[in-house]
């Protein structure tokens, strides 16, 4: 049977040891609740879908240092050579690579006249050709893909076609279809891009940006001395292709540096490294805190058993069963944990509020302190049951044998 009242008075009359433990529990709950919330946030960020078939895509860079080469012609030849390699599904030049942490972006202007002129959200700009959509593996959900003849050699004020991510389309044109609309890369009327398609999802390069989901694919050729290429190939062919591509391209024209072959999986790992590190450090902290708390509990129970050997024997002599002895220690520690948990939970919320103000974190959800308290009850049970079971084995004869 539960004996909350006498145990409570016992606790209230005993001196410092439960107080210190209580303090430890309060702090643990406050920290663990916030830490697990941050961990969850980070993991959720890392879990976002880029829209790209990351396991099949890689990029590399090319620097052509021979000024006599016709870069336009050479690029067409290069792309053909890459596409002809076994295992390659598609390839394109590109102004940037998703999740790479670097690239191009712009705030586009929308509107037909100065009265209804407004800005579209700042978006990643993927210059690429008709194979860009296939190379990234993004899913076209409206309109159509770019055609080879629509890839213009330079950015002119008209005729440029583009494809936008659905997030961009929804934001820029909330109530209507984006297909057929025009956006301007500059002031109204300048560098017009006609939207011909919408893809379900395509992230930009900056994973910490609020505008990560806004992307525009632009059908304009890039032929600089420094170029970036995206290749989609069958899984498992990357190690071979990163040798083969420089080989075939150098055979055709050797005056260039081809390097930085990186899979999108690698880009993802490095762009999320800080998040990953933060999540692991915090997880370690949570585990350590729970461990320390449970050790503290076990320690206090063992100390109390030592101190109360005669009392336990006496209780047994007076009719306590072994279960009564175990529950004596369980109830005692549940009381400490419950008080610590509630105060710690409130402290967690206060701490969360501070973190929210100073570190740009979302508000701590109430489930986290609650889950932490539940976790604490489990930890308490585990930490207490073992020594308490040993205490229950104390012989009732202790009552007469010890003075």
């Amino acid at each position, binding site marked *: 049977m539960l004996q909350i009242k006498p145990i409570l008075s016992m606790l209230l009359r005993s001196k410092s040891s439960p107080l210190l433990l209580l303090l430890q529990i309060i702090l643990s709950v406050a920290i663990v609740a916030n830490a697990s919330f941050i961990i969850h946030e980070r993991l959720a960020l890392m879990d976002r879908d880029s829209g790209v078939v990351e396991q099949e895509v890689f990029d590399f860079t090319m620097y052509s240092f021979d000024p006599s080469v016709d870069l336009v012609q050479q690029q067409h030849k290069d792309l053909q050579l890459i596409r002809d390699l076994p295992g390659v599904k598609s390839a394109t030049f590109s102004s940037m690579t998703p999740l790479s942490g670097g690239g191009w972006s712009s705030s586009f202007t929308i509107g037909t006249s100065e009265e209804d002129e407004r800005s579209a959200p700042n978006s990643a700009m993927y210059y690429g050709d008709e194979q860009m959509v296939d190379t990234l593996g993004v899913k076209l959900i409206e309109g159509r893909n770019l055609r080879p003849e629509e890839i213009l050699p330079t950015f002119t004020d008209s005729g440029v076609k583009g494809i936008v991510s659905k997030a961009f389309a929804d934001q820029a044109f909330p109530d209507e279809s984006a297909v057929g609309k025009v956006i301007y890369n500059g002031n109204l009327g300048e560098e017009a891009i006609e939207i011909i398609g919408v893809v379900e999802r395509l992230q930009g390069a900056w994973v910490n940006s609020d505008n990560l989901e806004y992307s525009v694919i632009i059908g304009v050729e890039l032929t600089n001395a420094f170029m970036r290429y995206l290749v989609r190939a069958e899984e498992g062919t990357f190690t071979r292709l990163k040798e083969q591509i420089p080989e075939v391209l150098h055979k055709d024209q050797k005056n260039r540096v081809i390097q930085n072959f990186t899979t999108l999986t690698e880009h993802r790992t490095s762009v999320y490294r800080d998040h990953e590190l933060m999540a692991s450090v915090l997880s370690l902290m949570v585990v350590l805190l729970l461990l320390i708390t449970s050790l503290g509990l076990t320690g206090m129970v063992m100390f109390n058993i030592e101190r109360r050997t*005669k*009392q336990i024997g006496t209780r*047994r002599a*007076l*009719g306590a069963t072994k279960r009564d002895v175990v529950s004596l220690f369980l109830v005692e520690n549940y009381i400490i944990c419950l008080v610590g948990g509630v105060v710690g939970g409130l402290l967690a919320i206060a701490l969360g509020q501070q973190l929210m103000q100073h570190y740009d974190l979302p508000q701590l959800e109430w489930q986290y302190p609650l889950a932490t308290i539940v976790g604490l009850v489990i930890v308490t049970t585990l930490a207490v049951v073992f020594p308490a079971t040993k205490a229950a084995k104390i012989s*009732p*004869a202790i009552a*007469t044998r010890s003075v």
Partner: protein
Amino acid sequence: MLSMKNINKVFKTDLVETHALRDFNLEVKEGEFVAVTGPSGSGKTTFLNIAGLLEGFTNGDYFLDGVNISNLSDNKSAAIRNEKIGFIFQGFNLIPDLNLAENVEVPLRYRGFSRSERDKRVKQALEQVGLGARMKHLPAQLSGGQQQRVAIARALAGEPRFLLADEPTGNLDSMMARQVMELLEDINKAGTTIIMVTHDPELARRAQRNIQIVDGQVCDFTMYQGGQPQLVSDNVQAVS
């Protein structure tokens, strides 16, 4: 009421075997007040512990109130201790962090009594030992004699058939010892069977019946006759 036949108790520690009780035989009738004396280490506490189901015995037969005590489960023993037996210890064994009322309440909670029943019995028991006004005091605030009276109240509150006391006056001066003894005599008059271990020959003489344990056996005993204790002081003195 209590019947022990050929009880043996052997303590085994690493190399030594101690025969604390050897072929121990004893019958105690309902309502008796038995004083147990004997030299130190003779097995008095061992006998009392076995009688009170605080420890088991190596072999022999023990019936308490008609119940065969060998092979009782741990829970069943706890229940019998709780319902039928009251214990009084030399060191009082009160719980220092609980006040007097809470101390007396401990066995009643294990019994599963309702709150009102517990309150009634706690009050009654503390009043019976003359401490009804100090329910909220902590044990440390009382003298030794008062603490032992609280322990007696704790033993009485469950209205046991049996009261077992191991040197209940061992830690008390003679005045307080006499008070405690008078209390025990009152309890015995009200019908409770009492077995009391004591080193004090004067107190032992006041009991209806004296038994002496020497070397783990009942060596000598004196039955009362016709309600008048017949004192065999030579025996008792020979012991001390």
